[in-house]
C-alpha cells in the first residue's frame, strides 16, 4: 500500500495484529498525518448551540480538500473516518440525536459525482439522515462576508420528512463564517427541532 496523499510507500512491520488480520490498515503515511493540525475548537451560540471543528485549515488540509473535492478522489473520504466517527459516536452516546449532512445541490452533486459529506459519513460508518435539500447552486467560497450574510435561505426540509423535538447534529467539511451551518440550523429549528449542533472537519479563518 502507498500513502493516499503523497504516494510514498507505507512501511509495514510484521506484527501479531497483522498476522491475525485485526491490525488497522494505514491509509496515509506518518509525515502526512503529522501535517494535519488537530485543534478541536468548540464554539457556542444561539442558532447553533454547539459547533465542534476538528482541524485547522492549513496547507496540508487545503491540499487534502483540493484532491478530495476538485480532483474527485473519493478514496480520501476514509482518511479522517476514525476521527469523525469518534466525535460523532460520542455525541450520539449522550443524546437521542440525528446526524444530518449538509447537502449539495443536485446539479452540483451530479457534476462532482458524489456528495463529499455523505461520503465522509459513509466512511465513518455512522447512521445519518438526508433531511435537507440545497435550494440553489451558490458556492460559499466565491462570496464575500457581506454577500454571505445577506442571502436568501439556502436549504429547505425534504418533503415528507418530520422534524422531531430532538437534537440534530449537522456535519460539514469546513466552517468559515458559519453562514451555511446557520442557514441549515435555522430551517431545522423553524421546523421544530429542539437543538442544533454541528461537527465540521475543518475550522478556517476568514
Amino acid at each position: 500500500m502507498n500513502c493516499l496523499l503523497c504516494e510514498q510507500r507505507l512501511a509495514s512491520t510484521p506484527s501479531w495484529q497483522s498476522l491475525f488480520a485485526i491490525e488497522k490498515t494505514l491509509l496515509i503515511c506518518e509525515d502526512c498525518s503529522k501535517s494535519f493540525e488537530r485543534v478541536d475548537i468548540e464554539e457556542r451560540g444561539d442558532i447553533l448551540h454547539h459547533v465542534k471543528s476538528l482541524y485547522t485549515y492549513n496547507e496540508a488540509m487545503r491540499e487534502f480538500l483540493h484532491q478530495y473535492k476538485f480532483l474527485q478522489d473519493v478514496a480520501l473520504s476514509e482518511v479522517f473516518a476514525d476521527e469523525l466517527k469518534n466525535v460523532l459516536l460520542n455525541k450520539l452516546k449522550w443524546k437521542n440525536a440525528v446526524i444530518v449532512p449538509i447537502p449539495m445541490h443536485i446539479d452540483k452533486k451530479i457534476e462532482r459525482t458524489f456528495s463529499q459529506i455523505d461520503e465522509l459519513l459513509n466512511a465513518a460508518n455512522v447512521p445519518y439522515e438526508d433531511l435537507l435539500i440545497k435550494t440553489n447552486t451558490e458556492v460559499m467560497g466565491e462570496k464575500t462576508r457581506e454577500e454571505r450574510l445577506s442571502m436568501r435561505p439556502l436549504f429547505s426540509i425534504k418533503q415528507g420528512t418530520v422534524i422531531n423535538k430532538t437534537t440534530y447534529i449537522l456535519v460539514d467539511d469546513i466552517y468559515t463564517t458559519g453562514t451555511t451551518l446557520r442557514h441549515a440550523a435555522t430551517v431545522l429549528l423553524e421546523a421544530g427541532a429542539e437543538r442544533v449542533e454541528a461537527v465540521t472537519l475543518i475550522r478556517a479563518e476568514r
Partner: protein
Amino acid sequence: MKKPFNLAIRDFLHGRLWLRMHTPFPTEEITDQIENGHIELIRGINTKPSFMNQKQHFCNRCENENQSLFTTFDCAKCEGPCTYCRKCLKMGRVSSCTELIIWSGEKPVYPTNHILAWQGTLTPHQQQASEELTNSQEKQTSHLIYAVCGSGKTEILFPPIHKLLTEGKRICIAAPRVDVILELEPRLRTAFPDTKIEALYGGAKPTMEASQLVLATTHQLYRFRHAFDAVFVDEADAFPYKADETLQKAVRKALKPDAPAHYVTATPTDKLLSTMKRSGSVSTINRRYHGHPLPVPTYESLWNYEKQIRKGRLPEKLRRWTEQRLSKKEPFLIFFHHIGLMEESRPLFQLLHPHIQSVHASHPDRKEYVQALRNRELPGLLTTTILERGITIPNIQVAVVGAEQQIFDKGALIQIGGRVGRSVEFPTGDFTMFHDGITYAMDDAKNEIMRLNKGGILK
C-alpha cells in the same frame, strides 16, 4: 456530403487521448465530430470479471492495472457503482462513466521543410553514434546512446531528429524530469526554428497546433496514443521512470505500432543495457565532447554532519568548501539526501552568503532559482537529487553532503559529478563527496569515472 470541420480539433486530438468533458473546444463541435465518425469514443475504465466475483479494472488512459490503485464508489452521475483510476488522477479523473476521445478521422499532414540551425559540429564519436541511431530508426529497432555526462548527447539527436522531421514524421523527446524538459526546450527551439514544438509538463498549457516535435515529461505520455514515429527517452534511468512500469508502458502506447523507442543516458540500468544489447543496438561514448576527463570525486569525511547541522552548526570542512567557492565566485550546487536536513542547514549557509537558496521537487520557485543561478544572480543552491541531471551551468562546482546515503547510488553520483566541467571554457571543477563513511556505491562511481578517463570502454 461531409461537413467541413474545425481543423484545430483534428490537430489537437490527433494521437491525443483526452477527456471528452475537458477539451478546449465547444462540446457541440466535439459531438458533431463523434457523429461524423472523426472522433473515436473510448471508455475511461474497462472492467472485466475475474475469479471469485472479483473485478479486474484497466485504465484506458494510463494503462494502470494495479488493482489497489482503483477505487469504486456510488456515482451520482451514472447512478451506480463507478470505478476510477488513482494512478493518473491528477490529470483529471478517469472513471467508468468518463469518456475519452481521440481523433480517428483524416490525419494531419506534417510539413517537411525544417531547418537545422545548430551551428556546431559533431566530434567523430558523436557523429558515429548519431549515424548508428539513424540506422536503427530506419530499421525500426530501438537504440541506446550510452554516453558519459557532458559528451553532448542532445546534439547527437539533432541529425536523426532533423531527418525524421523532413520526412514529415512526428516525434517526441520524453524525460522523467521536468527540469530536463525545461533545459531542452530552448535548445531545441533554437536548433529547429521552423518546427512546431510543444513542451508538455505538469502545469504547462497545451498549444492548439499540430506540434510535430513534442517535448514531454514521461507522465504526459499517458495522454497520447499511437501518436509518434519515434520517442527518444532522455535520462532513461531517472526516477520515477525506471521504477514505474506504467510510465514504460506509456512510452510504448504513445508510439505508433512498430515505431521504436530510443534511450539516451550516461548511467543505464543493468536491465536496460542487457535488453538493448539483446534486442536493439547500443552506441557508446566515453569521452566528453571537449576531450577533457571527467572530474574524479574527492572524499571528505564529515562525521556526524547530521547532528551538527541539527544543532545549528555548519560542519567545518563544508563551511570551508563553501567559502572557497564564494571567494572564487564559482557557482555551486550542494546535494542533500533529505529535504528537512537541507532546510535546516539553509540559514547556516545564508550566514556565509544571504543569497544562497534551496530547491526541491515541489519548491514553488524552483525554476526561477535555477535560472538565477545560471544568470549568476545566486552564488549557489542547495538541492535534493532533482538537479542531479539535465542541467548545465558553466564552471559549476559540486558537493554531496551525506554521499553514503542510500539515495545516492552509483548512477546518481556519476550524474551529480557529471554536472562539473561541461563547458569548453571551464572543463574542470571540484566534485567533493562529504560522507559519514564510504559506501560501495561511492567506490563504484569513483572507479567507473577513473576507468572511463583511462579510455576504458563502457562495459
